[in-house]
């Protein structure tokens, strides 16, 4: 009797879990479905739930017309800025942790920089970038994303570095390494998974950014979110392109949740929960 009871409850839970999962995945399914639909299917009433063919035409069009380039722009700016932010952020975090540089205040000040809404600073940043002549360049967006993500990287890496036993570093110092070498040969390998997880999130933030890219790009470095919003034009809503380009933007994220689950909770909670 009790056995049966437990079994029933398990199935009830699984059922609930499936309903919930359906709710969260369906919109993305719908987006994907649109990206494979023909124009007739997209503008059919009642809506077509499953496209008749697995049709890559909408993607083909994006690539043929060079509009998929916006994905490349997103990739270049997000990945290079991630490298910079990770490098400068990690060494800064090391300094904060090991040498208590600037005491507690410097750390608080740095993380508070992340709190400022982009909309508040984007105009002055725009003027600054005009002065430097880096509007609509990779350099511009990379500099911006690096700066914008630095506080996050420092904050997160601070947490990860704090977890590295001090004795490891001291042992290496005694064994004959310089401080710089200790950082590279001991701290970095020890913080490897933290570095990786933080880098992925840094990448995501830059990849998903809209407002900065909207203001600071013109034509050469338009990123995919900016491009997607552009498709909701006045005279033709290019739903097929919205669907296909958005899906291209979602794909890396599917990979992220597929492979990085155990790091995600710490990444999004800014270190509040250690996964």
């Amino acid at each position, binding site marked *: 009797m009790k056995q049966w009871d437990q079994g029933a409850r398990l199935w009830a839970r699984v059922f609930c879990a499936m309903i919930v999962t359906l709710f969260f995945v369906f919109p993305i399914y719908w987006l994907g479905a649109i990206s494979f639909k023909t*124009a*007739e299917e997209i*503008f059919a009433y009642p809506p077509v739930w499953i496209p008749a063919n697995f049709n890559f*035409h909408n993607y083909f069009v994006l690539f043929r017309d060079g509009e998929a380039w916006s994905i490349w722009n997103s990739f270049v700016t997000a990945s290079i800025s991630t490298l910079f932010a990770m490098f400068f952020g990690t060494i800064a975090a090391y300094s904060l942790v090991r040498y208590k540089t600037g005491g507690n205040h410097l750390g608080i000040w740095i993380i508070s920089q992340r709190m400022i809404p982009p909309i508040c600073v984007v105009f002055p940043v*725009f*003027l600054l970038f*005009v002065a430097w002549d880096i*509007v*609509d360049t990779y350099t511009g967006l990379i500099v911006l994303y690096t700066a914008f993500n630095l506080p996050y990287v420092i904050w997160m890496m601070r947490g990860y570095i704090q977890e590295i036993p001090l004795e490891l570093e001291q042992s290496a110092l005694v064994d004959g390494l310089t401080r710089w070498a200790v950082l590279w040969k001991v701290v970095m390998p020890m913080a490897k998974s933290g570095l990786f997880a933080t880098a992925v999130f840094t990448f995501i933030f830059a990849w998903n950014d809209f407002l900065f890219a*909207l*203001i600071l790009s*013109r*034509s050469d470095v338009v990123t995919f979110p900016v491009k997607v*919003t*552009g*498709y*909701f*034009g*006045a*005279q*033709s*809503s*290019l*739903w*097929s392109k919205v669907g296909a380009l958005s899906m291209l933007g979602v794909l890396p994220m599917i990979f992220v949740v597929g492979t990085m689950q155990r790091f995600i909770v710490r990444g999004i909670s800014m270190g509040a929960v250690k996964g």
Partner: protein
Amino acid sequence: MSIQSIVRKLLIAASTIAVGLSLTTLEASAQSAADRAVEAAKKYSGTTLNVLYEAGLQPLDPKNFTGPLWEKLTGIKINVIEAPIDQLFTKTMQAHKAGSGSYDVLNVLPNQMPDLALAGALEPLDKFVDKYGYREELQKIAPVYRDNQMKVEGVIYGLPDDGDVLIMYYNRAIFDDAKNKAGFKAKHGYDLAPPKTWKEFSEIGQYLTDTLAPKVYGAGLFRQPGLAQFMFQERFRVAGGKFFDADTMKATINSEAGISVFKGMVEDNKYMPPGVEQWGFIEPFSAFLAGDIAMTISWPPVGRWAAGYGKGTEALNWIPETKIADKVGYALPPGGTPELAAGFSFGVASGSKNKEAAYLFSQWMNSEEISLKRVQLPYALRDPFRTSHFSNPEYRSRWSNAGDYLDVLKAGAETGLLDLSLLQTDRYEEAMRQAISRLWAQEDPKEILDDLAGQWDKLTKRIGLEKQKRVYNDWANKPNAYPK
């Protein structure tokens, strides 16, 4: 797939031929405005012009057709930069405020021209127009566009380049149907024909819905606030309304005319398809092509596409297949004074580092011969705007009743009403859009319009009453600001 690719190849071949043809015609006619522009531009060979265009279909013209041709003729490269329509103003001003010289040639919406000109973002063009002898050809642009989308306070800031006007389209199969005709005449005592007044429009719409719904509804119109405000502006003035008092500059939008138009707009929704309140551009357009509505009012491309012009063009594959290709009727909307909704002029950015070349490109694009080809591009969104476009035999033979189409556009180009254009028009329009969404939310028309008038007065006060009054009267005194 294979058929599509064949079609595409054919299209590519066709456009190659088109380029070839245009080259020969250019050589044949000596010293036209286009030729002068090309001749003068050759000294800038090797430079690049950044041209700001509305994203979507618009840029296909400079990207696929005129851009390459211009480069071939002058050696000047055309770099098309796209921005969604609501970003055009932002991007233009942003570049101006920053002094970055990001753009050379601009697409300017007429009602934004005063702001851009007074903010100093646009280059005055008179000197270039004279230098390159373009005044004469500029005069040949259809009157309303010429007189109203070119100058701010007497100075030329733009070359009007788009014959945007809201024309009425009706399904002739329904209007010619004997049963409908007889039934309508029996009920209302006059013939079933394209309506001349809004009263007739309502009666016809109601009658057709009553007899044919849910298969066919009498009409479907723009109802999204952004587009519906164009329809309101038109109907308000047709009903005799004035936006402001010319002396006190007080808003008079809440006059009797305003209230009755607002009430009429709500009433009309009743015979339109369910959900019409949300209709933007696509919905009435696709419903009309599908034969689901008997009448609609929209921009000129709808008239072409409904007739099947440009069918099979890849760029237009998002357009639903027309089921009424040979049944499209064209007429001026009720009142006979269509709204010249939006449209584009070419302007030259004041911050451009290559203003002369930018102007020359604009002149070339805008010239008789080049513009004639551009307005005929199947995927073009540029609508006929020159007297010569309307009478062009080639264009008039594009489909069975293309002549009717061009005649109506021509008539519209004479009687069309200008969009309200003030300093910071957008703020006034914003308030108007807000009022319309309240209208759809079933609020009381009078109350909404009183609020709207209050908001407008406040805006006027902030911007400066005298300054705004000058701009308004400048606009209001144009021949097509109000119906004659």
